[in-house]
């Protein structure tokens, strides 16, 4: 047991109920050059601080959602649906 992640559907739950996928990135266009694809697939900001990430509520409502989380302390993170990403940015 560790910190509690806030699922936008189910509310706060132990982080062990969730799966982390990756930091949020835009997928390149299909015709992007190979280097751009390589960067997308392998390189990461790996930010020390607040970053936006993909999480999945594996043991709950089975939803994919985004979390804005401070990777230094996990406190005060914000969770939201993908469809709300655009208005957030």
């Amino acid at each position, binding site marked *: 047991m560790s910190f509690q992640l806030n699922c936008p559907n*189910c509310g706060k739950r132990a982080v062990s109920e969730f799966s982390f996928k990756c930091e949020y990135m835009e997928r390149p266009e299909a015709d992007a050059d190979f280097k751009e694809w390589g960067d997308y697939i392998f390189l990461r900001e790996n930010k020390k601080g607040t970053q936006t990430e993909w999480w999945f509520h594996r*043991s*709950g409502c089975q939803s994919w959602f985004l979390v804005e989380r401070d990777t230094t302390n996990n406190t005060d993170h914000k969770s939201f649906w993908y469809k709300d990403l655009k208005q957030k940015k």
Partner: protein
Amino acid sequence: MLIKNSPLSGIYRRHSANTVEVSGWLMADDFGNPEKEQKHLQEQCVIADWSHLGKISLSGAKASSDAEKMIKGASKIKVLNTLSDQTSVAFRLTQNDYLLLTGSGNEESLLDKLKKPQSTLINQTGAMGCFALGGARRDEVLERSTAVDLRRDRVTAGSVLQSTLHTVSCTIYRTEDLDILVHSRTFSESLFDALMDVGIGVGMIPTGLSVLPVSFNKEDA
């Protein structure tokens, strides 16, 4: 027609349950001592296998209007709340996900109400196991089983949530006098063993449909 087996059929054998056929399902009627099981239900707690219940899931943007067609009022339920009538109960698990529980054999009549589903509809009857916990001390079993606060004042009768019991993902539905645990049938036996393992210390024993018959109604309803 071949008989339908509960995911706990192995447990029935291990515990010498008396079985009964319900709508084509071979279910436990009791576990050999209905009087004792009744007493545990009154004074301590029991676990009963309700895996034969009809289960239908609806997902997608149109789930709520489909659910409404099957159970009147279902589209108005708030997320993580439920609505029950005599034979069925609808859980709204997310904005776009419903799970309907209905009496065994009743799924077809519910499905008949929905000629052309607009949502992703799955008859989950055989995919999911279902246990009912009854008796006053069932909270003591749950507090040893899940990291979610299920105390009555936090998760009230009529509410539903999805979380894990002994690391098995479950949909947990509270009524006034029961907790109903719906889960993947593949984990049923494991979950039963785990619940019994902690339950035995608080006087929980397995029982069957004769002692804990299926009901969704809240006492006040």
